[in-house]
């Protein structure tokens, strides 16, 4: 067990490329930390610097209060699960799991006991005599985890461990990892670009963009109070809708009409010529399904619905709209960074599945203007954010606050 503390960590490659830029992050003892971001944001590099497979250009990496910058991976007592499992093909499952213990020259009885314990926990007991080549993807994944847990390592590091599995197995393994971590209470750092893994697994999430730490917080904090456009775009699926807006005399002009929010979080912004407004898909609702009491509180507008997708538990409606050139350009850049490509400016709206709205019709939609986020059009900063807001089920570890 150990806490991991990073102070101003920088990684610069020989060609001058800066993969990780001045990252400071405290991971408490026993905490489950997620590193998330689009490909190339430096999250894997950061993980490899923790484990020692990558040199640290500058900054301090402390594990359990000891500076480990110059320590070889074998002296850091960390366990890592690789994206493609990295099992030893010439060894049986038993010997694969036992490998770290064998290197330490642990007595045979201890090896046997620990491997059997781990195998039981991961339901691998009947596969111990087989070779990795004869295992399914999920089983290989579990062997890799087994190799990590027999170590009694100070921390677990996961590098996108589930990205090679199919969707169903991924769901099962996700809960498996969560259960294992809760049971062992080992400090864990988990790199992913998967929405669901990021939102559900960790105590806290760290969002990286081009090697720079954007925001660290619980899933709730990131979802409800994103620090900037980037975080707002990364967290949530389907992603947050960004539309251009203008604030004048406390009234906000949106492509769907002018609203006048009264809450302090929005009114304190003051007048601005151009802002970007953020709406989560579920902020919208089919007007006909909004309870009568709420109707007057929100804003109602009529749109042409382009396409709808009914998923059983949800209904997605796509609503095209016109946006000024300047905003389109900035949003286009953001899209590219997030590895997605949107062809047109459109709203994605999540409606109640009972809604009667269908493709190619006009629809009356409703939203509550108090919930929307306002971002600075130039810097992307969230102007409506309350950085100190906490949520009931936030599992914030004692004394750990990193901003």
């Amino acid at each position, binding site marked *: 067990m150990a806490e991991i503390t990073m102070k101003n960590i920088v990684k610069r490659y020989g060609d001058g490329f800066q993969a990780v830029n001045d990252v400071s992050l405290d991971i408490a003892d026993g905490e489950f930390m997620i590193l998330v971001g689009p490909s190339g944001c430096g999250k894997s590099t950061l993980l490899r610097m923790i484990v020692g497979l990558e040199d640290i250009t500058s900054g301090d990496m402390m594990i359990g209060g000891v500076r480990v910058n110059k320590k070889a991976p074998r002296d850091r007592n960390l366990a*890592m699960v690789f994206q493609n*499992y990295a099992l*030893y093909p010439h060894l049986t499952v038993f010997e694969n799991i036992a490998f770290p213990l064998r290197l330490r020259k642990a007595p045979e009885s201890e090896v046997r006991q620990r491997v059997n314990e781990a195998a039981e926990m991961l339901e691998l007991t009947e596969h111990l005599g087989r070779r*990795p080549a004869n295992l399914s993807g999920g089983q*290989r994944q579990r062997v890799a985890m087994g190799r990590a847990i027999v170590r009694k390592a100070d921390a677990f590091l996961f590098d996108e461990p589930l990205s090679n599995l199919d969707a169903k197995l991924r769901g099962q393994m996700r809960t498996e990892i969560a259960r294992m971590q809760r049971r062992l209470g080992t400090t864990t750092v988990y790199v992913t670009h998967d929405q669901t893994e990021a939102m559900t697994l960790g105590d806290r999430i760290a969002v990286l963009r081009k090697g720079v730490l954007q925001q660290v917080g619980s899933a709730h904090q990131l979802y409800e109070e994103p620090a900037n456009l980037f975080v707002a775009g990364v967290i949530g699926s389907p992603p947050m809708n960004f539309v251009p807006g203008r604030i004048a005399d406390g009234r906000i002009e949106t492509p769907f009409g002018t609203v006048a929010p009264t809450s302090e979080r929005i009114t304190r912004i003051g007048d601005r010529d151009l802002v970007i407004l953020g709406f989560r898909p579920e902020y919208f609702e089919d007007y006909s399904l909004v309870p009568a009491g709420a109707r007057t509180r929100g804003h109602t507008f009529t749109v042409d619905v382009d396409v709808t997708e009914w998923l059983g538990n949800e209904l997605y409606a796509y609503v095209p709209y016109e946006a000024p050139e300047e905003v389109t350009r900035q949003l286009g850049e953001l899209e590219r960074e997030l590895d997605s490509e949107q062809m047109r400016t459109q709203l994605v709206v999540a409606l109640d599945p009972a809604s009667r709205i269908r493709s190619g019709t006009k629809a009356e939609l409703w939203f509550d203007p108090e919930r929307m986020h306002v971002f600075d059009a130039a810097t992307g900063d969230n102007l409506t954010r309350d950085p100190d807001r906490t949520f009931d089920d936030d599992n914030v570890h004692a004394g750990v606050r990193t901003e």
Partner: protein
Amino acid sequence: MVGQRASRWWTTGGLLILVWALFPLLWMVSLSFKDPNTFRSQTPTFFPSKWVWTNYQTVFSDALFTSALRNSIGISLIATLLSVVIAMFAAYAIARMDYPGKKFLLSMALAIAMFPQAALVGPLFNMWRSLGIYDTWIGLIIPDLTFALPLSIWTMSAFFRQIPWEMEQAAQVDGATAWQAFRRVIVPLAAPGVFTTAILTFFFCWNEFLLAISLTSTNRARTVPAALSFFTGASQFQSPITAIMAASVVVTIPVVLLVLAFQRRIMAGLTAGAVKG
């Protein structure tokens, strides 16, 4: 059923090729068991009418053959060993490291492998004589190495490239030193490649003819392929053909045994299952 018809064609084609390839071999075996005095009979038969061992007795009692066999085994083994050890280091560097001139080195190795041996024989003959290594083991091992090394380097670097090197890092995280990671993880993974290369190189040296016949003059270093052409049979009045065939069978046996014994090793996809498959 298109699929069935296609597969029948494949089977027929395969059988034809098999017969084509095996026929000379069978003929060789059959001839080696025929009586050297009567094998040219009026009514030729494919299989001998009477199976005899005399040809084998002839070749093994001939000093020319036994010393050639010794030379062949010695020269091939030494050349293979040297070639594999050197190629192992070269292939590791080619597969793992990036350095200027790597492409050039590889294409030069290929160019040497392509180089016509016949063009080298004359100069080598003169050079070896003035150096005093004409008609010696070392005089054959050196040119054998020249042609075997590119083959070994290319084969082995192809194998080494397939090794998931992430494994080395996994081992280091698991607590291994660089040497332990190499010995306990990389060596077992590389072994099939090294092995296959060794066998291929051994065949190459074992079968080498042109250099062997040009750079030797006596039993001191003459290898079997070269010695066969000097074969005369039991007496000079007897056709040496059946005896040559018996000698050919004897030198083919180690090759066939090696392939049979190690074909699983040669083809083993030992790395299968290491990574997502």
